[in-house]
């Protein structure tokens, strides 16, 4: 065995291109995956440590007016909780919203990232990511409510680890939304009329079940209603995106990354399998001689598995080294540009290091060991006769009546079908990854375009109390919930009551006693026109049933429309009740009279934010998929050439030019690449529908799945460009094949 193993070193050197490219691919992919898991694990650890230190709320509610201290005491006693005033003021300047909190030293405490917490009345601490995106530095001055504030520090708030302005927002907003902390004195300088009365609560008893916490929140809401307190919202921490989104997002990424890694490793396993098959075929005489000389099947198995396992080990070792040295910075940057987390301490995820290391080695041993075990069980004589095919006799397949050259190419494809099947799998996998990474931006861009094209009013003013304005269209609004047919989660829907002759929604027939729903609601409830649908009050036990009479043009959102008259009837409101105004012009409504202003830009901003979040992942996915393209294509097409090198040599002797030889062998590969690319497209389309349906189904918004035609063209173009790059290497290789090779091989 010792003597035999000396050839492994030579084989490695001779085929350094083949093995080197596999090593590079393994290093990059294992590096990315391992770094992803290490950073994820570290971020999770950091998040949990910070959460524990910061006394993060178990829930919160927002009311229209401050609650009296005595009633707070009653609530605390009744529900065995501690209630904290966590008031804030939303200050909007241009497109930017600053959510300014008073000093938080008891609940949802801030972690300082850089600088210090404000102590003077003119100091402010802002969210780190927002400052990074806005180019703000410590000691910069921002003006709020005509007061200059010096930025004293960058903070991360544990209840805003994901910067959602509203809990129902589709995406985090790290560009135009920031949380901020000012001192008590500083808070008093702000417009007190715009205070949002938010109360955070923490249960005195640890480890209350989620069910119990939800029941308590529901009960608390009822108590507040019964007390005559206008409750704007109540939220348990399990539903607070600012608190849980990070962990859920991390959790949802892990199985996807593991699945992608598993598929990748299986493909690499089969690439090795093709290499081993080709080696066994070409070394059949030698194997036959060794078996006849007394070498055992297992000795030869060990010999032929050594190099693939060695190559994989190199990839695994260096992949993990790269992952835990510089690649973690790539992912840390990705996480820290999306999430507002405290400074990270790295914690190696040993389970994942073992997973990324043992999975490829194990699969390569299983896939190839299986093949070798079967093939090496043949008699030495069969090897000596070079008869190592599973089926002794090659089956004749009648080919279509095409030119000889085309039949020749088809024969090459049939001869190398195993290589080409793996090549197809590699191309499909790489194209799928590529399409996934490229599809996100246009899909969100389409989401923004649809909003901009739609008849949504530029401004929706939601009032605290009815104020009459002339010549402005009134609407009614209520937020209810419905059952997501696919996830069984409760999702929020805004139900509008509109005027009979609405200038914004003229297509809605308000004479019907029924509801028009946006496409998103119909999709998520699996309902159609004519069905009836039930909505639930989020805090009370009230149910509301409507008949669906149409679809309304309100893209990307979960909304329903009925007439104002029907609205007031359905929700027991007075005849002249209304919630606010639709307007295409900015209205001069005093801040103290309005509850919220929803602008068309607000709705579209979610899409913009999504683009900027996903755009960071796009280059990584693109690099990984193009590498898979390059390596799989290079290795498998090289196997085809190596396997046919002798035939090429014969052809040259007979008088075929290099170009003609290339025309047979490289065109066969080109045909397979082209077919794989085109055949993959519909499967990628179907696959992505499933993936995106799953990804988007839980969102409180509706994003239409669409793949623009140019993406298909891009995928095919990238595939062909990769092929032609590899082709250049093979052209040189085929030109170098010597006619004498055919004369030397006389066995």
């Amino acid at each position, binding site marked *: 065995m010792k003597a035999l193993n000396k050839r492994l070193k030579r084989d490695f050197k001779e085929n350094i291109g083949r093995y080197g490219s596999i090593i590079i691919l393994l290093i990059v992919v294992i590096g990315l995956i391992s770094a992803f898991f290490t950073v994820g694990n570290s971020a999770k650890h950091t998040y949990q440590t910070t959460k524990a230190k910061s006394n993060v709320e178990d829930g919160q509610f927002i009311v229209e007016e401050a609650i009296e201290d005595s009633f707070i005491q009653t609530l605390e006693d009744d529900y065995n909780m501690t209630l904290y005033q966590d008031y804030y003021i939303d200050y909007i300047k241009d497109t930017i919203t600053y959510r300014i909190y008073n000093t938080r030293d008891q609940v949802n405490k801030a972690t300082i990232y850089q600088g210090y917490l404000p102590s003077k009345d003119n100091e402010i601490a802002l969210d780190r990511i927002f400052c990074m995106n806005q180019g703000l530095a410590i000691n910069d001055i921002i003006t709020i409510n005509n007061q200059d504030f010096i930025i004293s520090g960058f903070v991360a708030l544990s209840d805003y680890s994901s910067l959602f302005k509203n809990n129902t927002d589709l995406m985090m907003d790290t560009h135009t939304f920031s949380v901020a902390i000012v001192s008590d004195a500083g808070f008093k300088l702000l417009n007190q009329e715009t205070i949002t009365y938010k109360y955070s609560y923490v249960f005195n008893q640890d480890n209350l079940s989620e069910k119990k916490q939800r029941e308590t929140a529901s009960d608390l809401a009822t108590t507040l209603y019964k007390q005559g307190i206008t409750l704007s919202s109540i939220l348990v921490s399990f539903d607070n995106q600012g608190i849980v989104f990070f962990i859920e997002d991390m959790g949802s990424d892990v199985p996807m990354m593991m699945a992608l890694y598993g598929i990748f490793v299986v493909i690499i396993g089969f690439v090795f399998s093709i290499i081993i098959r080709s080696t066994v075929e070409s070394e059949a005489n030698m194997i036959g001689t060794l078996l006849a000389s007394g070498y055992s099947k297992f000795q030869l198995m060990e010999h032929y598995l050594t190099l693939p396992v060695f190559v994989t080990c190199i990839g695994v070792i260096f992949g993990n080294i790269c992952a835990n040295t510089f690649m973690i910075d790539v992912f840390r940057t990705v996480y820290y540009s999306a999430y507002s987390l405290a400074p990270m301490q790295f914690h190696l995820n040993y389970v994942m290091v073992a997973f990324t290391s043992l999975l490829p080695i194990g699969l390569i041993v299983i896939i190839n060991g299986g093949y070798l075990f079967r093939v090496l069980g043949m008699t030495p004589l069969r090897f000596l006769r070079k*008869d190592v095919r599973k089926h002794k*006799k*090659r089956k*004749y397949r*009648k080919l279509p009546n095409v030119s*000889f*050259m085309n*039949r*020749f190419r088809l*024969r*090459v494809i*049939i*001869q190398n079908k195993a290589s080409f099947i793996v090549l197809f799998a590699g191309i499909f996998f790489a194209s799928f990854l590529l399409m996934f990474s490229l599809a996100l931006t246009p899909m969100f861009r389409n989401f923004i375009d649809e909003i901009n094209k739609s008849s949504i009013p530029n401004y929706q003013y939601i009032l605290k109390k009815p104020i009459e304005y002339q010549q402005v269209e009134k609407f009614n609004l209520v937020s209810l919930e419905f059952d997501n047919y696919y996830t069984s989660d409760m999702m929020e829907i805004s139900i509008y009551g509109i005027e009979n002759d609405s200038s914004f929604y003229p297509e809605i027939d308000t004479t019907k006693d029924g509801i028009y729903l946006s496409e998103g609601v119909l999709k998520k409830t699996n309902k159609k026109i004519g069905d009836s649908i039930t909505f639930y009050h989020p805090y009370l036990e009230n149910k509301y049933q409507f008949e669906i009479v149409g679809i309304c043009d309100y893209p990307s959102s979960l909304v329903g429309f009925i007439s104002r008259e029907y609205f007031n009837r359905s929700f027991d409101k007075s005849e002249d009740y209304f919630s606010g105004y639709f307007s295409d012009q900015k209205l001069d409504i005093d801040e103290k009279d309005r509850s919220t202003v929803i602008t068309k830009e607000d709705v579209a901003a979610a899409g913009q934010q999504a683009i900027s979040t996903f755009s960071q992942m796009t280059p990584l996915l693109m690099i990984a998929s193009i590498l898979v393209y390059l390596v799989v294509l290079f290795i498998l097409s090289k196997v085809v050439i190596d396997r046919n090198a*002798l*035939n090429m040599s*014969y*052809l040259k*002797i*007979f*008088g*075929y*030019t290099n170009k003609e030889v290339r025309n047979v062998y490289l065109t066969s590969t080109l045909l397979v690449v082209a077919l794989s690319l085109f055949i993959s497209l519909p499967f990628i389309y179907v696959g992505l529908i499933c993936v995106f349906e799953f990804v988007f189904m839980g969102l409180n918004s509706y994003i239409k799945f669409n793949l623009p035609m140019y993406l298909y063209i891009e995928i095919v173009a990238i595939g062909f460009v990769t092929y032609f790059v590899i082709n250049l290497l093979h052209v040189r290789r085929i030109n170098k094949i010597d*006619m*004498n090779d*055919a*004369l030397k091989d*006389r*066995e």
Partner: protein
Amino acid sequence: MDLKISKLSKFYGEDENRVEVLKKVTCEVKEGEICVLLGPSGSGKSTLLNIIGGIEVFEEGEVMLGNRSLHQMSKKGIDNYRRNHLGFVFQFYNLVSNLTVKENIEVCAYLSKKPLDITDLLKTLGLYEHKDKFPNQLSGGQQQRTAIGRALVKNPDIILCDEPTGALDYKTSKEILHLIQTINNKYHNTIIIVTHNQAIKEMAHRVMRLRDGAIIESYQNTTRIAAEELEW
């Protein structure tokens, strides 16, 4: 076209390792002749065949096919020379393993502007029944017949046969030699056969014997024996 070789020398290696494998070889083969090159291993007969086939280059001398000099041909010219004028038959057949019998013959038919009718050829070769079989489904004799068909389909001026019966049994060897003779009679191609087998010289028009890179004997047979009557 006649083949004329004059003062042909071929060397392998360099400096002190330089070996002269062909030493000023001069000979001539007339159009339509069967020429047998005899000699022990290392005598240079295969090298001479490869030089005639344009597979190996030579340092000195001249090889003329008709009035064209091989020495003066460019690489492309040599490729065209092989493509248009030569057919090859090897000891181990060298068939393309993933092509059928018919397709192996088509490999060379593709190169010719006026190839022979493949169906007729398959019948002449006794391969018509096997036309859809792959090389590994054929006997050695059938494989060699396929190789002969592949060489012949272009109807080349010269067919070069390197030990065409070297891997075959006695009976099959005779069948193959008979086939070669039949082809020569039917199509009048010049056929050069390199062999160890002394008996084969009896079927040739011309015989050359090589030793240590030099022709030590060259003569024409006044009487030839039919291939099926050869004995060894």
